């Protein structure tokens, strides 16, 4: 046993540093979440600086739990993360399999496919919501207006006109509305992160055992069977990694939500924290603790999943 003492002793500074690195911010957040700390409350100046005499117990937690959008924020956090994960994994596998074969212009296609990943999140959101999804000046609005114009023209035709006049006019969709803003965010983030999934899956496909595939072909296995029984199991580990890394990133989405709808009908826990942090640091900290709990629950599931595939 004594021969392990020295290495442990040598590790201590690093371990201590890591502990401080993590524990100090967490401890501060915990402390703030139990006291009254409101930046600019003029009626109660004693609340404007953090102090133990403003101890509030679970009052901040109660305020956050009862606040209008808390439940929405949790639901929406999970809804956004799960939808993006589902879409990126499916799209990622499809595209990766598609471009895995050699074809002319392969290099250019691959570079184009990867490029969305290098767009900054805020730029991504501004680009999508203003230039693509805008119902009047964006691509969507222009396309809908064009289709309606075309229908108008067809209605003027002598015989077929009466048939087309039964068709309805198309209405552009407002993606900043309460009902659709979460979908807009899912769309733009999926666009941005699918390349990441493609990249990981493509690398993995290249390491697929070709001899096994040839054997399968000789045994008369169709393309679907090859994909189902050889490729998919082979992709198990990369899927787990994509899911885990993306879940971590998408639980903390902020810029897209702010730019698309300013939280209208679509906010997650980080956004709720941001709203409180303008003034009520106590409530923001309590929300932060809730976010840590949520992230840990998600992490437990993910780690199990990843652990399982890594064991296999």
């Amino acid at each position, binding site marked *: 046993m004594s021969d392990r003492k020295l290495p442990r002793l040598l590790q201590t500074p690093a371990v201590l540093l890591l502990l401080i690195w993590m524990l100090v911010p967490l401890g501060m957040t915990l402390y703030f979440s139990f006291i009254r700390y409101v930046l600019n409350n003029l009626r109660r100046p004693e609340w404007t600086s953090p102090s133990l005499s403003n101890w509030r117990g679970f009052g901040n937690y109660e*305020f956050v739990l009862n606040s209008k*959008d808390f439940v929405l924020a949790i639901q929406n956090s999970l809804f956004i993360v799960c939808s993006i994960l589902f879409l990126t994994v499916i799209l990622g596998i499809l595209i990766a399999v598609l471009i895995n074969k050699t074809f002319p212009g392969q290099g250019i296609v691959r570079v184009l496919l990867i490029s969305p990943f290098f767009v900054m999140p805020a730029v991504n959101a501004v680009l999508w919501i203003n230039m693509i999804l805008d119902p009047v000046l964006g691509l969507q609005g222009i396309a809908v207006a064009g289709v309606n114009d075309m229908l108008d023209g067809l209605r003027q035709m002598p015989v077929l006109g009466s048939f087309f006049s039964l068709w309805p006019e198309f209405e552009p969709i407002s993606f900043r509305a309460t009902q659709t803003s979460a979908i807009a965010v899912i769309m733009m983030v999926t666009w941005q992160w699918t390349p990441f999934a493609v990249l990981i899956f493509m690398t993995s496909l290249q390491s697929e055992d070709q001899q096994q595939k040839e054997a399968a072909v000789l045994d008369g296995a169709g393309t679907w069977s090859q994909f189902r029984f050889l490729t998919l199991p082979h992709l198990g580990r990369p899927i787990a990694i994509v899911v885990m890394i993306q879940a971590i990133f998408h639980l903390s989405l902020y810029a897209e939500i702010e730019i698309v709808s300013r939280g*209208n009908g679509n906010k997650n826990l980080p956004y709720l924290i941001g709203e409180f942090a*303008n003034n009520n640091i106590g409530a923001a900290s309590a929300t932060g603790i809730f976010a840590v709990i949520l992230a840990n629950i998600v992490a437990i599931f993910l780690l199990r999943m990843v652990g399982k595939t890594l064991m296999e």
Partner: protein
Amino acid sequence: MSFGKALCAASAIALMSGSAATAESLTIAIVNNGHMINMQKVAEAYTAETGVELNWVSLEEGVLREQVTSDTATGGGQYDIINIGMQEAPIWGAAGWIEPLTFGTDYDVDDILPAMRNGLSHDGTLYAAPFYGESSMVMYRKDLTDAAGVSIADNDSWENVKAAAAAIHDPDNGVYGACLRGKPGWGDNMAFITTVVNSFGGAWFDKDMKPTLDSAEWNAAINFYVDLLGNYGPPGSEGNSFNEILALYNEGKCGMWIDATIAASFLEVDGVAYAQSPNAGNPVGANWLWAWAMAIPAGSPNAEAAGAFIEWATSKDYVQAVGNHPDFGWGAVPTGQRASTYAIPEFQAAAGFAAAELAAIDSAAPAATDLKPYVGVQFAAIPEFPEVGSAVAQEMAAALSGAKSVEDALAASQDAADSIMREAGYYD
């Protein structure tokens, strides 16, 4: 140490050479609006004249507010001069976070429009000097109203305005009757919605500072707003604020727009006419009042130099400097702050909206009244207002999108506002 020594050396040299210039520098946090961006260039002359170095920190409105609030509240001392608005000035003055301003007689404080002076003061002391100010008014396409045979008068009734919007509404040809703010935010959709509510006789809080969003006036006003914008507005109105509507208007998509007077100077469409905001008969008025102003955080070590700069940047001379500047000219001078600006012939020639703007600003009344027991027109000058306003703003956007009924949205707004005010300790 070496920097301090260099500074000593520099000031010693400056003293020895007998120059009045000192090695002073000011850090100024500004909002990234056109007039402020221009100021960075105009102020090069100020640096050349006085030797005061100016470091600009230009931020987006929301970010600036966050930065400046936390810096001021915690006494961070990052900035020597900060850009604040009418919502903050009286509160921060009362809290002692910003220095009271005193100016020489040349500055002519009485020349500052009374509405601006009142809105930026607390207990009769000026705490922030207005750099530019604005109210709101109706801007409409005279060609469209003439073609439709309707007209919009000053302080028209809302019913007439709606009838005019309906008459010019022609979505098949890409023209929408009314473009109004719908994007959630206390300075976005709520700025406009509050003026509608004011004009219907409603207010944010009663005399005990309890929110009154469940009142009949709010209900009538929001129903009207949702109906007008929902039927005669462009699709996607819940995403439109000042900049988005300006783009739509300049694309020829808007028949009528009720928004900040400052918009008039950016309109590139011909045949725009102006009218004072519609009113449902309430004396408080239906147009808002806002100023971007400059203030000095309390305890700034460079308070004296900061005061001198503010005195220059908000003076009559500054207006002249912008007007005569080769890069800007009279169309780009900051407006809405001084009465004398409106008397300058070159400005009158460049700004067709000047008379309507001045009338709108003069008619706005920020002071507390029986009807509206708080300072502010399209906001309440209390620290909790941004929180309350943002929460309500999202509900209003939900009502506009049709995700919620107006009644449900107002009930949720009342609950949220009540819980924020209770949390802040206004009542138990």
